[in-house]
């Protein structure tokens, strides 16, 4: 028998941990958040990758943030977030995967340079290339929002809006020169802001 309270391991400032925290708010799953040291004897056996978040749900341990939020929605039978119909589910999953494959890859260098101020990431041409790729990805979100009407996978909020919404928050919170305006993305950002989970774990001042 698993406990009602989920244990989440990770730093609340990490974008990948924030996906899990926001998902718990949307699902209504109680949780406790712990921040073990990455190399600690307590943490290491839970995730051989040494990365967070990790969840502990009774005796079930799981890592990889996008997998965790799919598991939690599925476990709660949250049909509105992740439908059980294979086709409807796949259309939600596409945008969750795309966040990992394209969106996150695009901003990596620029984010390190402009937010983390990382010394090895200060090459101007590489920053410009990353901002260009990032802008292209946001343009894809903008186009999709125009077609899907309101949320990333359709007219209603789904699990895909969690990784995409956090990524859009990062876009607006990063100091980008001459940031192009994407009206549908801006309206989406404000629409997400009506959700308490997003204000707590997404649009909370952290890029």
């Amino acid at each position: 028998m698993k406990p009602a309270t989920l244990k989440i391991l990770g730093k609340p400032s990490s974008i990948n941990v924030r996906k899990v925290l926001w998902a718990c708010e949307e699902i209504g799953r109680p949780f406790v958040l712990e921040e073990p040291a990455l190399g600690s004897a307590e943490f290491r056996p839970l995730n051989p990758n040494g990365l967070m978040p990790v969840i502990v749900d009774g005796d079930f341990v799981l890592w990889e943030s996008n997998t965790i939020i799919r598991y939690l929605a599925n476990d709660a039978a949250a049909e509105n977030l992740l439908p059980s119909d294979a086709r409807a589910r796949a259309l939600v999953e596409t945008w969750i995967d795309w966040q990992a494959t394209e969106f996150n890859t695009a901003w990596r260098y620029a984010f390190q340079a402009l937010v983390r101020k990382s010394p090895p990431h200060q090459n101007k041409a590489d920053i410009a290339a990353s901002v260009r790729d990032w802008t292209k990805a946001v343009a894809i979100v903008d186009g999709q929002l125009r077609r899907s009407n309101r949320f990333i996978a359709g007219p209603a909020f789904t699990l895909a809006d969690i990784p995409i919404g956090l990524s859009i928050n990062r876009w607006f919170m990063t100091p980008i020169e001459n940031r192009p305006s994407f009206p549908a993305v801006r309206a989406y950002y404000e629409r997400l802001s009506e959700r308490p989970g997003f204000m707590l774990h997404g649009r909370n001042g952290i890029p």
Partner: protein
Amino acid sequence: MLKILGRKTSVNVQKAMWTVGELGLPHERADLGGEFGGLDTPEYIALNPNRLVPTLDDGGFTLWESNTIIRYLSRTYGHGTLAPADPHAYARAEAWMDWSLTSLYADVILTCFIQHVRVTAKDRDVAAVAAAAKRAGEKLGILDAQLASRQFVMGGQLTIADIAVGTLMYRYFNLPVARPSLPNVEAWYARLTQRPAYQAHVMIDFKPMMVAGA
């Protein structure tokens, strides 16, 4: 009939094709992307706004993102085989699929493969390739531990976890990069190479893709 849009030399098309092959599903494939082009037409962008391959068409239902495609195919046509029936096992298989994207893909494909195949020897960023190969070797050490007591990533049978990670392995083991000793990964890869669907759809010589001077 299932239709897969995408050139057979794309590693992401190969994931979808291997899945279709394992499931024995009747299908056809259309060459798109790379030298075939066709990704910037309004018709294609309407199917796949990300303008990459593959795109799946299952009787008019269209879908993109290769890992999403293989999860969809396995849930629809391979429940209990390629898609583990137990929800915990399914979630663990998904974790390894995500791991292939977050931990391996950039180093193995975007750096090692692209630098060796799409960049001339003169322009190759040798230091970046060496660093990427080192990271990939370390990450595969984690998979090596997982495979110590298992025939396949999840246990005794092939699942979507093997497909997502295993598709990258043909390139990893056939590129001239430094590899650490990974006995369990090597034995697993050898098992994959015995499968007809892997041979047909993944073991596709990439030398013809190399640019002149690569």
